[in-house]
């Protein structure tokens, strides 16, 4: 685990960063000249298209959760690795081998099967789900949003809605957010450009980057603050850079669908990546926040192996998350992007509930010395 330097050099660097931030307020034109684009600089009186940047500060798989899970999980939650092991091997001590028990279960994790197993898989029930209408249709398997929108596509909810790990109480939900604060592998930033108004604009461009930099929080670490700075990672994060066209209507940004990768961070800073077929954003924008959905058809294989490389069987046990059982369900419920050869769906409709906080974006081409010289003037 890396740590942060806390010496005089660090303070000097912060001072330089602070000077840059002050410049962002005072000298936007100069900053543009040296490669910094200021976010939150929208001015109603300006006719020049403006931009705004946001950094992702929270994400959860979009699950409709009722008190006690009584509506969506009337039969309770799915069994996890520990519970399944006990049922499969009720008397392992002294009679069973590592090979026929532990390694057989791990083999099932890493080389999963769709053949039936003895455990009933409990899919999330009910007509309501969170998410986005990905295909523009209202189909028999679609959900209705809590607000009444029909055609919501979120079959991944059926898969993981009754797996404790993924729910708000679950380890994944808690720790993923924690690692998002502490690590930067999964630092996602979006920049919306070509904006005339944050309320209504029929053509904007959204670019996804990986950012480098801490997320600014309040003094008690309980709230994310707008106005921080994120530098774009153009080298290692090159494969995550992607652009969407979209529009803003009554403050709601909706983009087109584009295939995209995003970086993820699992248990104890184990990095992974997700791939969405037809990924899109649906975000309610304000000058300080963007809240809504990152949705698309999660690639089933990528999603499954990202789950397991980031979350060991031990960690999944905390939240009763059995990978072999989940694989059967996610394969069964995959509903998009059929393989041209086999016809098997490669994507499953899904959505992440996301929250972004406004940041200034450093495009990384600036000459730091030029920034300092500008400040001195």
């Amino acid at each position, binding site marked *: 685990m890396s740590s942060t330097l806390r010496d005089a050099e660090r303070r000097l660097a912060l001072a330089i960063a602070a000077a840059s931030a002050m410049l962002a307020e005072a000298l936007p034109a100069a900053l543009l000249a040296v490669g910094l684009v200021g976010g939150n600089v929208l001015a109603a009186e300006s006719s020049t298209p403006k931009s705004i940047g946001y950094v992702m500060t929270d994400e959860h798989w979009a699950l409709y959760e009722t008190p006690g899970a009584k509506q969506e999980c009337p039969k309770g939650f799915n069994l996890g690795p520990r519970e399944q092991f006990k049922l499969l091997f009720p008397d392992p001590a*002294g009679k069973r081998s590592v*090979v026929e028990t532990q390694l057989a279960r791990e083999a099932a994790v890493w080389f999963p099967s769709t053949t039936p197993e003895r455990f009933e898989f409990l899919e999330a029930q009910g007509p309501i789900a969170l998410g986005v209408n990905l295909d523009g249709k209202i189909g028999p398997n679609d959900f209705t949003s809590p607000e009444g929108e029909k055609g919501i596509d979120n079959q991944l909810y059926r898969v993981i809605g009754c797996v404790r790990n993924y729910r708000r109480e679950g380890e994944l939900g808690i720790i993923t957010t924690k690692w998002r604060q502490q690590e930067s592998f999964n630092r996602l930033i979006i920049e919306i450009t070509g904006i005339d108004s944050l309320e209504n604009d029929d053509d904007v461009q959204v670019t996804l980057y990986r950012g480098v930099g801490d997320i600014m929080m309040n003094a008690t670490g309980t709230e994310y603050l707008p106005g921080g700075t994120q530098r774009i990672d153009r080298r290692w994060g090159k494969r995550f850079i992607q652009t969407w066209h979209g529009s803003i209507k009554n403050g709601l940004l909706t983009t087109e669908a584009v295939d995209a990768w995003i970086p993820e961070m699992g248990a104890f800073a184990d990095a992974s990546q997700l791939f969405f077929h037809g990924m899109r954003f649906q975000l309610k924008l304000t000058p300080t926040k963007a809240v809504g959905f990152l949705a698309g058809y999660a690639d089933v294989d990528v999603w499954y192996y990202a789950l397991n490389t980031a979350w060991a069987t031990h960690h999944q046990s905390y939240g009763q998350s059995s990978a072999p059982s989940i694989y059967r369900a996610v394969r069964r419920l995959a509903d998009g992007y059929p393989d041209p050869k086999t016809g098997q769906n490669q994507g499953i409709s899904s959505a992440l509930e996301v929250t972004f906080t406004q940041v200034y974006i450093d495009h990384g081409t600036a000459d730091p010395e030029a920034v300092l010289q500008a400040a001195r003037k």
Partner: protein
Amino acid sequence: MLRRCSGSVLLTTVPALVAAIAAVTLSVVNVAAVTVAATAATAATPATAATELGAGAPQEEYEPVPMPPGFKVVVSEFEGPVFADEHGHTLYDWPTHQLRNGPAGELKGKPNCDDTHYTKTAGLMSPYPPGLLLPEPEKRPTCAELWPPVLAPDGAKEIGAWSIVQRKDGRSQWAYEGFALYTSALDTQEGDVNGGTKRKTHGDSPADREPVAPPPLLPPQFAIAEQTTGRLLVTRQGASVYALADERPGKLVCDANCTRDWSPVLAPALSRPQGAFTVFERLPGIRQWAFRGEPLYTRISEERTHSLEGSDVPGWHNVYTQKAPPPPADFTVQDSPGGLVLADSRGRTVYIYHCGDDALDQLACDYPDAPQAYRFAVCGGGDPARCLKTFPYVLATPGVKSTSRVWSVLAIDPRTGHLAVPGQADALHVWAFRRRPVFTCSFDQKPGDLRADGWGEFNGYRNGFKAFWLRDDFTDNAG
């Protein structure tokens, strides 16, 4: 050269890479392990005289410490200086390691690696219960067979940090700083350090043995961070130390503007030259450290410890007390989403397999002579043939040689995963790092893909695969 075309890294063989990214990753290091202290001496001598060896690459110096007769210091290729017995076998200890459900290893003065023949799991990990029969129990060696204790002869006298502890069978055993000492059955030659590593291990790694070494010869402001690229010089706080090409005391290139980004590592008024560390006056009254004649700096903007990012700035390079030997010409280096990874000649990421069983003696299962059932489970669902397709060995091109003992070619029986018998016709000749074969993964489709990083039990740290990281700008996997 690390060539780029339209922003993409092209496949490049390692020898060609060395010149371009020596400061970042790999560079030529001599391959000979060198004995630097006489066996009969009671005090090791510093390795100053032996720091320019082989191809001219320097080796790390160490503090002279008193040693009992019969012991010496060997400067190994990858781990730097280590203690060894009179035969040159590296010495290891086994400090306690807290596992998920309890500790394993040894306390000071309490050796427990003995002749007990463990056949069942101890339940130290999770979520699987204790009492499961270990693979190939009838063949399983005892701890003492794989880790022979370093016995103290009658009349042996304690000296310095070297003491004598009593084993349960009543025999006397040498200890260093209180921890009992062992050699490894995996080491066959002087300079081998195949039994363990000084590199930090993950919390869910097995309770590993560690090579025992004299303190490095460093002023107290500095420390060494063990990385896959070598022994990185850092400040005591962990900040990477850099040097500027062609700069020397009296011929400073880093001027006032430069020092806005690069902070000279200043030497306190009472500091004195120490080994390859010297002090010079940067300005009247301003004393700065130099190492092997290069003035030292830290990079002001760096927030991460053990960073290699400063070496991206033209002219600047990280400083190593000793660099790791370069991999053979069959390998390349690729950009991944987190940093640089070692790759095969086609650019596919190279993976290292880690394995330790769950018995009380925590024997390793990551080398070809160990039971292969663990690896077969996670690389092929128990099927060796599937393993060959999913996680193929990195085959050695005939005629391509290693320039070090860290990298070697092993003949492997493809059906068993064990070492092939001499002359076996269908043996695979595969590359091995520290006598462990390395692999690629068929799930990776293009250079830099990392689909199998963390594959297996405990995110690849216990029975699974981790990418061969050379630089990680996010999660410190290269350390």
